[in-house]
């Protein structure tokens, strides 16, 4: 069985090329079914399509399966095929498996270790038409992906400003459930940070904005209430997290207005995230006990450090992926000797059954059962070591030679031919 991969990804293909071959999950399901049952050289197919890649994984007996995968990808692009061809990559057998394992582990992603890809690989696998080879490859890829995330810290650190702000909040508070968030400004940056905090259990309490209409719209979407900027000091008395991102030219949260409110909290922690340029929050507020103020520069520093951490963790994840790829190679190589082992065992069983048949009528029923069990045990014990040795040899260059020797010694080729 041959394994072939044809695909495009963010590494070499710009967005306008990638979107020509992008398909949704239903499209991937239909395409995989068509490729596996289309009468071509492929018997198995899985289509992985995300915003960063579209990859066709095919398996079949024929060497032409690689070409088939290539043609299918170009056909998917339709009239855009000429633009796609230079950006596409083709991999086969162990290289294709290794690539799949790296994809599942997030090592081929734009942000190393990003969490979504493992679920996307699983969805593609479940929607696809895998057989023994692709089934094994995808199961092992999912295992490699899980191991990379469990055994390394590649996916633990936030890789974006909103995620970093939420992670910092979790560093201050013991969980974000029912934490009160105040948004200052109703722009897109505030919204994405608020959504990230809300996804971790925080409650959006107040959306304060110069224009009350915009505040009301965002508040409605996030489940909070709208307020004017003048109402901020009162809102901050009970707030846990403040996210500020207005387009104001000057400081919105001034020291004079907020310092008395923050001091009255007596060290009760509050995280203020200032995402605006120029800054909305007076930096001196960060000196007050219990007030943790992060501006855009500080957050970018945190994200850069965590991305650096992800890259260093990627080295360990690569080791895990290599281990899993080696296991796949060993499994695949063992397939080459499986027919020889099966023939050998069938041959032995045939002899045993024939000899047992010659005793028919000469043994009592109980005695026959004893002889049956005894001979089966002898055959199994005799064949155990040769079977193990054949499987061991299968992963080396001598694997097929061993299989041929076994066939020759036991006359299996005559039987196979007969």
């Amino acid at each position: 069985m041959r394994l072939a991969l044809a695909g495009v990804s963010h590494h070499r293909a710009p967005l306008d090329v990638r979107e020509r071959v992008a398909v949704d999950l239903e499209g991937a399901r239909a395409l995989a079914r068509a490729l596996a049952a289309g009468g071509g050289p492929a018997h198995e197919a899985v289509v992985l399509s995300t915003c960063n890649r579209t990859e066709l994984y095919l398996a079949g007996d024929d060497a032409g399966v690689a070409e088939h995968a290539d043609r299918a990808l170009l056909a998917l692009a339709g009239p855009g095929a000429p633009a796609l061809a230079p950006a596409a990559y083709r991999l086969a057998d162990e290289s294709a498996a290794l690539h799949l394992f790296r994809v599942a582990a997030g090592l081929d992603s734009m942000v190393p270790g990003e969490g979504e890809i493992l679920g996307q690989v699983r969805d593609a696998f479940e929607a696809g038409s895998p057989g023994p080879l692709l089934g094994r490859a995808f199961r092992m890829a999912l295992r490699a992906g899980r191991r990379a995330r469990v055994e390394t810290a590649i996916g633990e650190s936030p890789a974006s400003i909103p995620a970093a702000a939420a992670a910092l909040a979790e560093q201050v508070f013991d969980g974000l459930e029912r934490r009160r968030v105040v948004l200052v400004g109703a722009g897109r940056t505030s919204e994405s940070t608020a959504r990230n905090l809300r996804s971790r259990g925080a409650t959006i309490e107040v959306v304060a904005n110069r224009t009350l209409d915009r505040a009301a719209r965002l508040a409605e979407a996030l489940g909070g209430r709208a307020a004017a900027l003048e109402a901020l000091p009162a809102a901050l008395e009970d707030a846990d997290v403040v996210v500020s991102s207005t387009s104001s030219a000057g400081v919105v949260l001034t020291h004079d207005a907020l310092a008395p409110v923050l001091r009255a909290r007596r060290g009760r922690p509050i995280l203020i995230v200032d995402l605006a340029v120029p800054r909305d929050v007076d930096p001196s507020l960060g000196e007050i006990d219990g007030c943790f103020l992060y501006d855009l520069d500080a957050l970018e520093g945190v994200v850069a450090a965590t991305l650096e951490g992800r890259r260093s963790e990627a080295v360990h994840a690569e080791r895990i992926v290599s281990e899993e790829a080696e296991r796949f190679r060993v499994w695949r190589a063992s397939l080459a000797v499986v027919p020889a082992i099966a023939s050998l065992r069938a041959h032995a069983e045939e002899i045993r059954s024939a000899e047992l048949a010659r005793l028919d009528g000469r043994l009592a029923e109980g005695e026959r059962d004893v002889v049956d069990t005894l001979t089966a045990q002898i055959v199994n014990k005799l064949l155990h070591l040769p079977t193990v040795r054949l499987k061991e040899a299968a992963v080396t260059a001598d694997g097929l030679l061993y299989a041929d020797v076994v066939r020759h010694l036991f006359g299996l080729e005559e039987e196979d031919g007969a």
Partner: protein
Amino acid sequence: MAELLVWPIVIAYGEAALVYAGELRGHGRYDRLGIWGVRVGWLAQTALLLAQARSADGFPWGTWAGALNLLSWLVVTGYLVWGCRPRYRLVGLAVMPLAACLVVLAWAGGGTALDARGDGWALAVHAGLMLAGLASFTVAAAMAGLYVFEDRRLKRHDAAVLRLRLPSLEALDRLAARATLVGLVLLSAGIAVGLAWLDVNGLDAAMTVAVLIWVVYALALVVRWEAGVRGRRFARLLLAGVLLVLAVLPLTHFAA
């Protein structure tokens, strides 16, 4: 032979301390080695304490060095309650170096020997409760130390704050308060047993410091509950209090 357990204890605690110190630069990959160091050391120290208890006629940790031995075991026991959870393992950064030093000091003072003189059981209960209370205060101080460390990292915008994850400030504050409350209850019980069952001839230096410790920690909890003093200020109070804890053992045995 049991005295030889001292070295496995010191090596295991020292290994844990080194691993946790190394984790300041890492990403939690080796903290399991650290926690295993703690567990192995704790088991060895438990075996040593059991051997001491068996060989002595009465309470074998009445000397200052013996008390240090028992105190370090109690501190590590307190740490193990939280330390097994992945996010709290790095509390060992504060606890394990201290525990290793206490064991070495105990060994130097003869507190790990098997032929320790035994004391009466009234003193045993009193000293056990007092030491357990002091161990709780030490664990609380370790939490407070981590709080101050983490607070400073967040205030200074340390870029690596999310790479080396410590427990959240709120969790450290809460656990420190809880350990303080437990310590205060144990210390109160220890003082009560001492007053009820032991001959008390006036107020000596050790008793004065013990009462002072009780007052300081009781005040810390009162201002926390009544005046809302939490976070960094509460952590600093606990760190000041632990200085008295460290002073009380030498006073008990040298000034008495």
